């Protein structure tokens, strides 16, 4: 082991620390993005033309904001958003500071995914609920979010995996985590085993997310 990966063995502590940072960044930004993304995704679905709370103005404004945010490349978003980060967190470097661009980078993506997942909920079921006298709130919570749950979990897996990718990019400009280790140590010092090890840990994280996600989907789906 020490023969193939000499530098990794020497940096065992840093790897543990970096893995933890990656998990922390992913989890924290995932939680906030989940709330924002679900809100915006539901808002898009209910206000869209033909939706249960149809509102053309709200829909078109929110739709355009989501498109705009999704169009900014993440690496540029990291830089552009730094004044906001400084204002909110007080600094632009470090793990916690990276949460701001991560959230803005991922929640519009998640909102769009949630929207698509909810659009797959059978319109007939929504109509049936309306015919049974359900209120819009009841339809959102008892039909959309429940009937769409399996799909919401599926898109959440995709989103979390994308998010892990984004944390490594944030790492490149100083947020810590496995991306930081891979680029600023492994790549910069030509210590290829370090870069490789960082990749392996990320792959393990991604597989773990996928496996857990698939297991939950199987539990909630009753087709």
């Amino acid at each position, binding site marked *: 082991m020490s023969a193939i990966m000499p530098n990794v063995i020497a940096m065992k502590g840093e790897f543990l620390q970096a893995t933890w940072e990656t998990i922390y960044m992913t989890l924290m930004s995932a939680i906030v993005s989940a709330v924002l993304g679900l809100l915006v995704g539901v808002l898009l679905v209910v206000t869209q033309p033909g939706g249960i709370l149809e509102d053309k103005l709200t829909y078109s404004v929110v739709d355009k904001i989501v498109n705009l945010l999704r169009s900014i490349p993440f690496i540029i978003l990291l830089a552009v958003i730094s004044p906001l980060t400084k204002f909110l967190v007080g600094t632009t470097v470090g793990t916690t500071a990276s949460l701001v661009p991560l959230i803005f980078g991922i929640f519009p993506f998640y909102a769009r995914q949630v929207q698509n997942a909810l659009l797959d909920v059978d319109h007939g079921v929504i109509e049936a609920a309306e015919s049974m*006298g359900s209120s819009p709130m009841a339809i959102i919570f008892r039909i959309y979010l429940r009937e769409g749950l399996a799909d919401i979990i599926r898109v959440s897996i995709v989103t979390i995996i994308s998010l892990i990718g984004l944390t490594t990019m944030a790492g490149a400009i100083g947020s810590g985590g496995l991306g930081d280790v891979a680029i600023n140590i492994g790549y910069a010092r030509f210590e290829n085993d370090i870069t490789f090890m960082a990749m392996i840990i990320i792959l393990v994280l991604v597989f773990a997310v996928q496996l857990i996600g698939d297991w939950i989907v199987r539990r909630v789906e009753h087709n």
Partner: protein
Amino acid sequence: MTETTTNAIELKNISVHFNNGDQQIDAVKNVDLTIPRGDIYGIIGYSGAGKSTLVRVINLLQKPTAGTVIVNNQKIQQLKPVELRQARKKVSMIFQHFNLMKSRTVQGNVEYPLLGTKISKAERHAKALKLLKLVGLSEYADTYPGQLSGGQKQRVAIARALASDPEILISDEATSALDPKTTKSILELLKQLNRDLNLTIVLITHEMQVIKSICHNVAVMDAGKIIERGPVAKVFTEPQQKLTNDFVETSTNVKEAIERITSTIKISEFKANQELMYFNFIGNSTKQSVVSELSQKYSVDVNILFANIDQIDGENVGYMIAIITGDLAGFNEAIRQMKNEGVKTRILTDGTLERGDGQ
């Protein structure tokens, strides 16, 4: 005032327009429709005739462009959203594709309309189980809809529709996705609910067979308008419009029979004393021995090519196509006699069909 209390639904001068770009589509045009309490009222029409749009006006799932909707003596267009939702609970609906929630068990689906009401959890369970028993699916309470057959799904949908103790049930092509045997059992169930719960049923379909088996009254819709309406037996036996006649003849197989007969036998080879005739017997006339009378009393030969007897809203209706051979005097006398007895006749060889000799 008695009129308002006996009608479950009154639609007055209803129009529904959709705007499709620059085009305006008139889905429903100036329709008046009154449905008495306790009736089973059928609305028949081909797809696109506007029947689904029309029935969705009843619970305001579709807001009419113009007209008044009175349900259970309430002008429901004047209701506030909360009141409208309350009113909707009394007008349940079942659908062609069942529209069950696949994330809930059968029991969960039936309990759905009771969520958020004052009814306790225990009462909710008990009511759902009672309804499942009523539709014959007690043992499926914990199953998910995905594992049920079409007919079973529709039974669950019916149980769910009954959970809010509705006074009106709208059936939107509820049997159109089911096979004939299942259709029959679902219609029997609807008939039973109408009888036992005095449930007013509004049923839309494109199959006259469905109308024939359970409806008391029927309206025929075409291009957004009701073109004919009345008691089913009357509409069936005296269709005034061509479309109605089409529906009737399709459902009785008469249309198919006429097409088959006129394409296989050569009318041009008919002798002058032969006619291809269509007979329609209604009510009591089905019980008489018309055919033997024809041949014995008027010495006319009857060669039956097609015959069918139907039950329409409790009344017998018979159809027969036959080649009649005999002399003109006896033949005319026979037809006159039959007319008096309520048998309707039509000479199929007359006018429209070509023949070689004779007329």
